[in-house]
């Protein structure tokens, strides 16, 4: 499964380097800028795949990094990679946005013209998939997106969300099933 730039950075960044960088970033803006550049595209890509709108993505990415800057002194480098912490903040922000927007998004799913499953228009298929995903409860959206879109293993998803692996597995199974039902509803309508 393909991983985004941000996750590759999480996996490959030397722990000692990152630990030192985080300590510096509490005092020096340039050190924070390094962290920002290291994780920006990964976080932005994750948010964009969930919300599908460039402007909303930019706003949410800004929220994530401002929150990270504000709470950097509370971040403790104890086996939780900095990137995981950012994904946790990002998930929280997107879930909050999704809860607010869900009613409107479900409505748009209803009035949205059906898309043939075999359509070659990848953008339309992606939009259809995104709206179907957004129709699920945010807790299911989050595990499905982190695991299947960002390529995180179950253990990493559990750490990101701060819950048990068993919880992630059950949400993955239920989320997949609910997504399948959403997709098939659309398919039968078309």
């Amino acid at each position, binding site marked *: 499964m*393909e991983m985004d730039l941000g996750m590759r950075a999480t996996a490959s960044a030397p722990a000692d380097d990152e630990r030192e960088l985080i300590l510096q970033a509490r005092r020096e*803006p340039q050190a*924070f*800028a390094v962290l*920002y*550049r290291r994780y*920006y*595209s990964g976080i*932005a*890509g994750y948010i*964009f*795949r969930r919300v*599908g709108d*460039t402007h909303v*993505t*930019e706003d949410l*990415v*800004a929220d994530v*990094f*401002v*929150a990270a*800057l*504000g*709470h950097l*002194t*509370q971040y*403790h480098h*104890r086996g939780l990679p900095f990137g995981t912490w950012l994904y*946790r*903040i990002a998930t*929280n922000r997107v879930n909050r946005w999704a*809860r607010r927007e869900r009613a409107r998004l479900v409505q748009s799913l209803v009035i949205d013209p059906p898309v043939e*499953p*075999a359509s*070659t228009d*990848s953008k339309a*298929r*992606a939009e*259809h*998939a*995104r709206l*179907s*995903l957004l129709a699920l*409860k945010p*807790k299911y959206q989050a595990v*499905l997106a982190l695991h*299947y*879109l960002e390529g995180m293993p179950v253990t990493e998803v559990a750490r990101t*969300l*701060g*819950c*048990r692996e068993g*919880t992630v597995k059950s949400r993955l199974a*239920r989320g*997949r099933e609910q*997504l*399948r039902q959403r*997709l*098939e509803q659309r*398919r039968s309508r078309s």
Partner: protein
Amino acid sequence: MNDSRDPVDSAFDALRSQRWAAGNHNLELEDQLMQEFNNRRTTPRFARSRTLLIALGVVTLGGVAFAASGGVAQLKNWFVTVEINGEVSQVQLDENGENTFTVDNADGSTATVHIQKSSDMDNDHTSVRVSVVGDGEHAEDEEVRITGKRALQWMPEILSEDVLGDAEPFDSWMDEDGTLHELFIIDPEDGAGSNLYIATTDPVSEETAVTLAAQTPMSLLAGDVEPEIELGDDGTLTIRLDDGLGRIREMKLMIRHAQPGEGADLDDPFHFETPDGNIKVVIEGEEDEEM
């Protein structure tokens, strides 16, 4: 495209193909962050480092089943999300309806978060209690009580006035409609902390209802100096303790009544946060989809 492919996998393939095309970083945002960094550096440190170490949330949720959008859902479990100073922890209660975990505070101390679910004898309401207890020496304490009304019924546990014994109220205040509220602090004989009770007297019937507002891990009455009580305009009750050695502990008790219907939808979980946003608690039910 092969139509026999699992539609879920096809959907994920389509979404994975969506790339963030706006660049590897955003210089405008980077500039904003640097400005934010410098602004924060010039802000007095104390104002930013106020750590709230005790949060107690109680939400009373109506019934094992309550109306969700599209029908009545059977609740299977609870998910509680606690955010303390930006540290987010989401936990699911175990088979005993409990969970305990720790959160590191900025000052190096550790806060212990304990969540416990309980049901009354008739099982007609469920309470979820979230308490965060820290051991920071110089930090402030804050205590939050949340009461939520869900579905058709909500009723805080009404206690006998006997629990108050001969105690005198520490403070009292009156609503605009004449309802009298009295705060009592009582140390139970079999516990280390204090119980805070609020007695509410109806202006018409003159009947008094006593409810347990909060429990503290340490006694509020053990010191030589009596606690100072202050009711803020926002309804926050502040209890200030001076141990006589120059150390002041503050506990804030916030009583939050949900509006009728608020949180009744499973997709709109009950949430609460302190005015400064340092402590946030979200409690959401998980419906039993197999029923």
